[in-house]
């Protein structure tokens, strides 16, 4: 059972957001966030332990056809979506404290 309101780290939020946007496995998330692998994977583990994301394996047949090991796909859960929405609003509030500087 996941805790009622788990504290989510900045990277955790990043990764969760990436998964929510359809980046479904480690390498892809790495590519899009630019975070190193040593950060991405532990974050995925924690998110999974908190039941904010769930994982599934790629179909065996497909991987075999392409001659590579099957991949592990991550997907955001319902709790993950809620959590993300809540965090998003929180970070937006923080963002308002830092008004955009004029470039001029």
């Amino acid at each position: 059972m996941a805790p009622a309101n788990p504290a989510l780290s900045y990277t955790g939020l990043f990764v969760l957001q990436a998964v929510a946007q359809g980046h479904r496995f480690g390498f892809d998330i790495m590519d899009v966030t630019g975070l190193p692998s040593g950060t991405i994977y532990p974050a995925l583990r924690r998110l999974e332990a908190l039941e904010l994301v769930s994982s599934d394996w790629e179909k065996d047949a497909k991987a075999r056809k392409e001659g590579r090991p099957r991949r592990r796909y991550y997907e955001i859960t319902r709790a993950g979506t809620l959590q993300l929405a809540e965090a998003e609003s929180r970070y937006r509030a923080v963002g308002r404290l830092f008004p955009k500087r004029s470039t001029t």
Partner: protein
Amino acid sequence: MIRILLCLVSLLVPHAVRPRWREEWLAEMSHARSRGERLRRRISMAAGSVPDALTTRRIATAARRATGPRAGIFHALDQDVRYAMRGLAKDPGFAFGVILSLALGIGANTAAFSMINAAIFRPFPGVANQEELVRLTLGTHDRQKFSTIPASYRDFMTIRENMTTVSGLSAYRDAAFAISTDGQTTGVPGTLVSGNYFDVLGVKPAAGRFFLEREDQTAWTHPVVVISDALWERLYDRAPSAIGRPLLVNGAALEIVGVAPAGFMGVKARSPGLWVTMAMGELTLRGPDGRPARAEAAGPLGLEYVGRRRSGVTLEQVRAQAGALRERLEATRPNPRARVSVLPVMLNDPSGMAPEIAGFMAVPMLVLAIACVNAANLVMARSSRRVRDWTVRLAVGATRWRVVRQVLADAMILSAAATVLGLLLSRWALSFIMRILPVPAPLDARVALFAVAIAVLTAVIFSLGPALSVTRHAAKRLAPAAAQIGGSRARSTARFALIALQAALSLGLLATGTQFARTVYAAAATEPIAHPESLVLAAVDVDPLRLEREAGEEFYRQLLDRVSRIPGVTAAGFAPRGIVTGQVSGDTLARIWLAESRDDGTSQLAFKVSARLLDAVAVRLLQGRRFTAVDETSISTVIVNKPFADKFLQGQAVGRSFRLGRPANTGASAMIIVTLDRKGVPTYKTASGSTAGDAVEVTVVGVVDGIMKQGAFEPPILYYPAALVYQPARTLFLRLDRSGRFNAAALHAAAREIDARVPITGVTTLAEMRLNHNVDVKFAGRAVGVLGILALILTAGGLYSVVSYIVSLRRQEVGIRIALGAAAGSIIGMIVRQALLPTVIGAALGAAGAGVVGVVIRSRMYGASPVDPVAFGGATLLMLAVMLVASWIPARHAGRVDPISVLRQE
């Protein structure tokens, strides 16, 4: 390379998720490669697997801790252990006291158990797959009691032919052999075995080979012998050339074909020096007529059987088949109720020994109980000091279980340390015991398991009670100041109850031990024979030589003549050994018919003695005369002892006549039933009695004093000077002069001059013999005494610690008393009185318990004295004195309390 790195890193991941973890990473790396990433980037990406593995691991352990009730109970156990270690290190006196007392208890138990372990479960050396072996015994089943029947060779054949569940059945029988080397003859214990004996036991020879089946089929065609490793060493210095050499055994030259492995003793606690086939049984067996006979013709031999179960056959199946043998045996045997029992092969069968084992273990268990009580006392004393700590822990939300668990962790650490120390102590004790009783008792896995089991049990017993009671108190009152004063009375009552229990246990042991020792030594002290140190005994046996009766008698006549002339010998004679030991055998019982009796007479102890034997033994003549050489020529005179004269001849013995029958003379295998009536007077029955027709008329010529006292009692005995039957084995008695010096070599030389083939064995003085007699009983008495003293020390230590604790607890009260004018002496007296009261109560209980034990021992042990006031009084006084000192030393501190400092603290 990346693959290898990942595999190595995956070792960090918990086993359950490792394959999935590895697969995911391999897939990711292969994806990166297919995307055309450079190697450098791929390596740095793979390096990320390390933090990932660590995270996975941490999440998995956290999940394990969080789930399941078991995990909950032992949550953060390492904390408890660390905390306990720190606490014990801060309180070394407590730790030392508990460890030492538990180590003594555990050590005593481990030593006792390893002796039992050695006595029962120790495998026989050299025997393969002992668990497959079965021991078959022929006997009758009578009122829940199985008594063995001496089995004949024919029974062996019947059983062997019909036992198909056993892959090989072998018979064996103990026998005495004499071997001659270089003109010297020595007696060697041996075993007569069927040809398949070594094959059935699965033994591998140390040299040469064992018997072949054909070597056991016809007599004298294959005169072969297997010798023991010890004999190989002694005679041939382990030379391989010994195989094939002839060895003169009982006068016959046998070819040595093989050597048994070192320590091999078959499946019996006896170490034979050589093994001879049944076909050569004539070397040692005698028929009913007393002449050498083959195994088939020798009648009841008392054979023992051992067989090996076929693979897949259970013990029950073997039993069932043995049960079905009954009818076949009935067809061939006169005894209709004969049946075969089947038992597993063990050194000692534990099934019939439960009372002995329980008795043997009871005493060390008592010591352990005392040690536990002691440790519990110390734990309680320490708990009271820590109650404030626990109260705080409970107050800030610790569960009671968590606190109890802390105490148990303490206890486990202490008892683990005590077990290690106890094992060392028991090793030391065993090496000491082995000097008295040479039984190898190794500390094997079974013993170690036992030690660990009792250590855990001990830890729970000595700590759980105090832990529960103290935490209950602690939970009730969270105000620490009140805790200290209010609770002390209740807890000191419990402590003193424990002290009383300890006192009872240790006095019980002490008194029992003392009584045991006194019984054994009192029996040794009543030596009826004067100067036992100058009476020499030696065993002579011409039986192995298969001499005719006349030749045997001639040998003994010459031997007596020669040894009488050895300087320093004042008198010499022959008699059965039973004359001084009271051992009964077939040829020491004769039937007598008194003049007035018409019935079939009564069996009494009767010893054939040579004319000067009674002089050699220096028995006191009460009436009449001693034997002379004339009496030896034909049987017409006897000498009786006083109980005989009183019982059968109304005290007027000299000149009276009665008829004397021949002794049974069936050798050692005869069944002799000795029954004791209420007063301990024995009656003897032999399986075969002689009839009145065999009897001769004898006249009593003298009455002598007793030489065979068993306790305070001596049975009626008669001595006769001329042979009624031929006895090939005799004991030589030599009385030495005042100098007491004796040259055993002269005795051996005297025998050698007459016939070099006759061995003289067991040369010893009576004093030595008595000393070695009942070694085990003496040992048991000493062990109980030592354990009793151990218990006393433990109890004294316990009382000491409790009193010093009480004194520290009552410092305030004592200070106020002194301030109000109490003298130091009266304060000390008060504390000592309070401490001694439970000891006295416990002592009374313990004495009562020991009294009960004494009565039980008396009923079980022949000649034990009734409850002994000296033993009891002595033990009680000793204990009270020790307890007085143990409570007085700490009580003195109370007298030195400075009232000013106490009042200042108030």
